């Protein structure tokens, strides 16, 4: 069982590529219902770390459990219990809204009835009634992203991994998106956000900052800003990354 209500438990996790430690002995915990920001510059190792957590890459050493499942042996169970959304790939542009929902519901093993039910709920909540039969490609970017996030929640996962979810989105839509995230977290879903956009970091309950494969800082945005005597997470990041 999960100890202390931690849905992600990472201890000294490392990933080596030859001599190069892409991820170097990182340790952290994420609590249920938390919005956890996982930050780092390009190449700091955050993608590698996330791949281990979502069960598509095997660690070199260390321990980690996600939703109570071991990242070495129980990757299939992990995959069933997490949702994933990235800015690069989220939905099929050439399928309609309805078809996307049905498809993703299907691959997570939802029954026809469940899918039907979820679809109604989701379409209503996002106000997509008019466009259920439109191709996703025709939707504005902001709508796509909100839809993609909802789709990643279809199977009611314990944890959702978001990879740079709101880059380039207009400010209002971005806020609507974060309101959705808050709501999901409020309902008990854990949110794990990897990003190098510092304004996304500001919204998280806690953030970790990776530099060269190691976690250099981990705390609430507020405490980090106090500690580094800056006004924004951006400046915290700059201080850390510039050493």
């Amino acid at each position, binding site marked *: 069982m999960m100890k202390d209500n931690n849905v992600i438990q990472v201890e000294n996790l490392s990933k080596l590529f030859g001599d190069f430690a892409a991820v170097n002995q990182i340790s952290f915990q994420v609590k249920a219902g938390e919005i956890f920001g996982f930050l780092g*510059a390009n190449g700091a190792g955050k993608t590698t770390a996330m791949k281990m957590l979502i069960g598509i890459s095997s660690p070199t050493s260390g321990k980690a459990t996600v939703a109570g499942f071991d990242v070495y042996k129980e990757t299939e169970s992990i995959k069933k219990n997490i949702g994933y959304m990235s800015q690069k790939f989220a939905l099929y542009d050439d399928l309609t809204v309805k078809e996307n929902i049905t498809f993703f519901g299907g691959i997570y093993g939802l029954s026809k009835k469940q899918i039907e039910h979820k679809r109604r709920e989701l379409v209503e909540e996002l106000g997509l009634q008019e466009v259920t039969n439109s191709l996703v490609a025709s939707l504005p*970017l902001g709508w796509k992203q909100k839809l993609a996030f909802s789709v990643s929640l279809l199977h009611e996962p314990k944890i959702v991994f978001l990879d740079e979810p709101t*880059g380039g989105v207009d400010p209002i839509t971005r806020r609507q998106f974060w309101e959705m995230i808050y709501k999901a977290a*409020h309902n008990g879903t854990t949110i794990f956000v990897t990003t190098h956009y510092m304004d996304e970091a500001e919204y998280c309950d806690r953030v970790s900052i990776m530099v060269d494969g190691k976690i250099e800082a981990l705390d609430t945005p507020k405490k980090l800003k106090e500690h580094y005597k800056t006004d924004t997470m951006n400046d915290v*990041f700059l201080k850390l990354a510039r050493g």
Partner: protein
Amino acid sequence: MGITISNISKSYGEITALSDISFDVKPGELFGLIGPDGAGKTTLFRILTTLLIADNGQATVAGYDVLNDYKSIRNSVGYMPGRFSLYQDLTVEENLNFFATIFGTSIEENYDLVKDIYVQIEPFKNRRAGKLSGGMKQKLALSCALIHKPKVLFLDEPTTGVDPVSRKEFWEMLKRLQKKGITILVSTPYMDEAALCDRIALIQDGNILEIDTPNAIVSHFPKPLYNISTNNMYSLIESLTNYEHTYSIFPFGEFVHYTDKRDPIDKASLKTYLESQGLTDIKIEKTQPTIEDTFMELAK
């Protein structure tokens, strides 16, 4: 010698990318075009760099008409399209060399202009561009756009996908280039970068929302703005959304940015209301609006 844009419109089929855009960029100015993806920034850049023809309106770049004098423009501007267009299979040095040659110049001839930037990637000059990090690609792309000493520099989302450290360095480089007399038009979806420009145009859905200096734009914010924080962000947003006096609320990191319909605001009753919703640790403080606040106010 700057840029003039008057009444430019452009549609793709049914979609209007730009509708009746007009503004000027003064010679030597660092001008920012700020707006989200899909606002029409790239379309405007392509019209100004003679890659697209506008449906309506006129524009000049460095004194040349974008339609009739397109050849002169192509000789005198530097252009860095979004997603750093480099030859991935060519090394850093080969890329720069190639762009120098096609503009009929050489690296040596204009080295002083790109030196500041190029020295940072010179240690990797034999590395293929495809193997560079985002920040290094960005610097190389900028070097390539500068190598022929352009009078006007067009940078389309140069900082997208680049980490904060590289972004900061990049803006420092732009400031230095501006001192050398180059007119720079830069677009970005990041509101926080707007403050670094001399003047900015806020753009959304093909319309210019406002054009001014960053300070002036912020000072146009119509209402007093408050930072509110409590123990629970989700309930706070829910509560304020249902509050009768709320004019606008937007989550802003650990705070909510709040404006009130009343003038002046009644802080005590707001606090009482929030407490009645079961919230604790309530803090309500006045704060300075940002460009993002103004953008959202204008875009509403």
